[in-house]
């Protein structure tokens, strides 16, 4: 109890003592007879306590004490709740920034490295013994990157059983996949068509197991990141409700004071109201800011980021299918169908039921990202055109010409794909930064809140104590 039972030595006895049951206090400074509810022997006996409590309600000083007590209690509750709720949200914001966002990004990278390795393996396979060193290095690097990220994800992902299962599956499947790719290469060098069957099986494992698990992991981690963000910006209803109650109660106390004394201001209570009001505004305003900043981040750069990431993945899948069409050596037309549907998902005109991802991304971005997307669209159109050339070579029985057109240097579809991929990676990186900045900016408001809650509530409580003690002293 912060309320002083005996008032501090009231230096200026400027206040007239409010008279009990007399609303308009007369200017009689006659001290009332010694208040019955004295602190001495408070806990003498339960019966005495009840009697005294009843007596306390009966007299003005007793009521004042109770009011002060209640106000202080309410304020403390407000402070503790605000501290707890805002610390909780600040913690969620911190987790979002420092843990779940990087984990979600890692998962996206794992997916991309795996898809890229698969595509590169097919390119290298097509080149056969003439596989350029750069292609081989790219494959090896992507596999290494993926397993590195998997190792670090395994270290972080302990808190979720599902993600641990997914990571374990990825860790088990990756060496199987690389084994299949090497078997494919070895058979191919022995001039055996079996090599191509092995590579198709490796691709099947990649699609059905590795990429499926990586995708699930990405969704899981992203959902967790979103959940952390949502928690960070969730409205602290309890704290705000208590804040409103505090300000209301303080207002009521002042009105009561005014009605009894006809004095407009009780400085202590005014100070307490101000402090509580500031805290209330801070809580409400801070969350409003954080909330709208996140909202903006998600609807602006966040949405574009999702579209761009999807577009980049789709481009990788299209490239993989294009390569595997040739790996299958005309033995399987499903790969070309997959290529066509991937390109359609990238470039479908907006009048279709679902506009192409690249066109969507163009509408969702601005500035340099938009320029990058525009260039990616141009490169993708060139790619489509070159791909048709390659198909024509293949149809004419010029398999080597088709291979040159797909994995050659200048003028190949591989060159176009690299351009699309680079431009999209550039745009993704830009949007990623924009998104993070926007998402985190609102959260700064939440970080300073817990200490502010403590300070402001203590101020308010002190003000209340003072505001109640003053008139109480006048009864002495």
């Amino acid at each position: 109890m912060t309320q002083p039972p005996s008032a501090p030595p009231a230096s200026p006895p400027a206040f007239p003592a409010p008279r009990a049951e007399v609303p308009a206090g007369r200017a009689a400074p006659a001290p009332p007879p010694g208040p019955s509810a004295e602190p001495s022997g408070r806990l003498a006996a339960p019966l005495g306590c009840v009697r005294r409590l009843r007596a306390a309600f009966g007299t003005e000083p007793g009521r004042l004490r109770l009011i002060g007590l209640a106000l202080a209690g309410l304020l403390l509750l407000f402070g503790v709740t605000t501290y707890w709720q805002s610390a909780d949200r600040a913690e969620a914001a911190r987790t979002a920034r420092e843990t779940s966002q990087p984990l979600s990004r890692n998962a996206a990278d794992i997916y991309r490295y795996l898809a890229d390795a698969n595509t590169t393996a097919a390119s290298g396979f097509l080149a056969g013994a003439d596989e350029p060193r750069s292609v081989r290095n790219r494959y090896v690097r992507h596999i290494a990157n993926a397993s590195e990220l998997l190792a670090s994800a395994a270290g972080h992902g302990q808190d979720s059983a599902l993600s641990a299962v997914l990571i374990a599956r990825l860790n088990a499947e990756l060496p199987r996949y690389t084994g299949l790719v090497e078997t494919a290469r070895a058979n191919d060098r022995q001039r055996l068509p079996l090599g191509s069957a092995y590579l198709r099986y490796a691709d099947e494992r990649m699609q059905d197991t590795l990429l499926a698990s990586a995708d699930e992991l990405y969704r899981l981690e992203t959902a967790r990141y979103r959940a952390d963000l949502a928690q960070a910006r969730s409205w602290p209803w309890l704290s705000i409700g208590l804040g409103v109650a505090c300000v209301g109660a303080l207002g009521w106390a002042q009105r009561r004071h005014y009605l009894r004394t006809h004095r407009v201001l009780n400085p202590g209570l005014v100070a307490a109201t101000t402090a509580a009001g500031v805290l209330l505004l801070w809580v409400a305003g801070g969350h409003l800011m954080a909330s709208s900043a996140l909202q903006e981040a998600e609807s602006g750069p966040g949405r574009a980021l999702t579209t761009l990431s999807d577009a980049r993945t789709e481009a990788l899948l299209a490239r993989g299918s294009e390569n595997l069409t040739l790996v299958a050596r005309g033995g399987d037309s499903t790969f070309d169908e997959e290529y066509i549907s991937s390109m359609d998902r990238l470039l479908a005109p907006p009048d279709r039921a679902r506009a192409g991802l690249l066109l969507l991304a163009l509408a969702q971005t601005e500035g340099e990202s938009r320029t990058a997307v525009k260039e990616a669209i141009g490169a993708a159109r060139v790619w489509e055109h070159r791909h048709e050339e390659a198909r024509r070579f293949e149809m004419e029985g010029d398999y080597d010409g088709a291979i040159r057109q797909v994995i050659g240097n200048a003028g190949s579809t591989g060159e176009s794909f690299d351009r699309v991929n680079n431009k999209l990676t550039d745009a993704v990186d830009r949007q990623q930064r924009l998104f993070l900045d926007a998402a985190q900016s609102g959260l700064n408001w939440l970080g300073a809140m817990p200490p502010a809650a403590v300070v402001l509530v203590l101020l308010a409580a002190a003000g209340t104590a003072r505001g109640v003690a003053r008139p109480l002293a006048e009864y002495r």
Partner: protein
Amino acid sequence: MRGTTRGEAGVGRGLAPHWRALLLGGAGLALTGAMVVGTLTAGSPREGGDGGVPKETADATRASLDEDPVPLASRERCDDSGEGGGFDPAESLAPSREGGPAVDRIQESGQLVVGIDQNSYRWGYRQPDDGKIVGFDIDLARAIAEDLLGPDPDIVFRAIPTDQRIGALRTDKVDMVVRSVSITCERIEQVAFSASYFETGQQLMVPRNSPITGFDESMEGQRVCSAKETTATQLLERESHGAHLMERPNHLDCLVQIQLGLAEALMTDSALAAGHIGQDPTMRLVGEELTAESYGVAMRSEDEDLVRWVNAVLASYQAGGTSSRWHASFDEWLSGYLPESAGVPPEPLYRD
């Protein structure tokens, strides 16, 4: 992926008793076959090379074809309404180099577009070092092209997926398909075939140390792989002998599964099995052939002049016994992977 998409009409109706008799009849042969393979396995290090059907078994199979009214390896007959009715789908048009609109068209364009497989080892595949497409099917296609267009002809080899072999012809993408296509009653409704240029049949193939001895109880509990929508798959679905069936897009994918230890046996025709043995010498054929099928060159039904021309080419290609071009091609691509008994060109059947 290859083989017929429908079962044999001859086995199709009243199947169960036939089938049982057939199997009983074959059991003894299978046993001797297994024993012969066993001795080969034990005795000879080059077993992988000729690990195909043991000579005796194959000969016996052929013999039973000629004598037995219920052949072990039954041939499909079309319009088989009654006993011994119908006709053999491998019957083609009589050979002639008279020519006609189709031959004129090809000779005027100076180019022959042939649908082929680039993934069928020893039959039609790409040599990685020089990128040339070679194989038994390819030799035949070249012979036809040379005959039509003269020496050093302009041939376009267009790789086509198994499921588009018929469609590629009907949409004029190719002039002919030389791609180990079995002649079946269903297919002759859609396209025309040359006379048979190779005889084969469905057979089980296993790794060297497999306990599976043939199409019998030894398959129980084993995983047996076949290509989707083929005669092999239909055979297995009809009688699995307790095996777990596994379907893959292509028979070569089945070999991958066996090498990875995910399947114990595969069913395909013995001719394509040569390609498997060529790529994995530890594989061998077991049991007897379960069907009798003929490979033919597929062409558009209306190109009758072309069919007759190709039959004329085939007749000279196969003539001359062991010195025939057919035999030279067999020696280059298939002998060592198939029993020598398979190195005999089939007798052409003509329906007019």
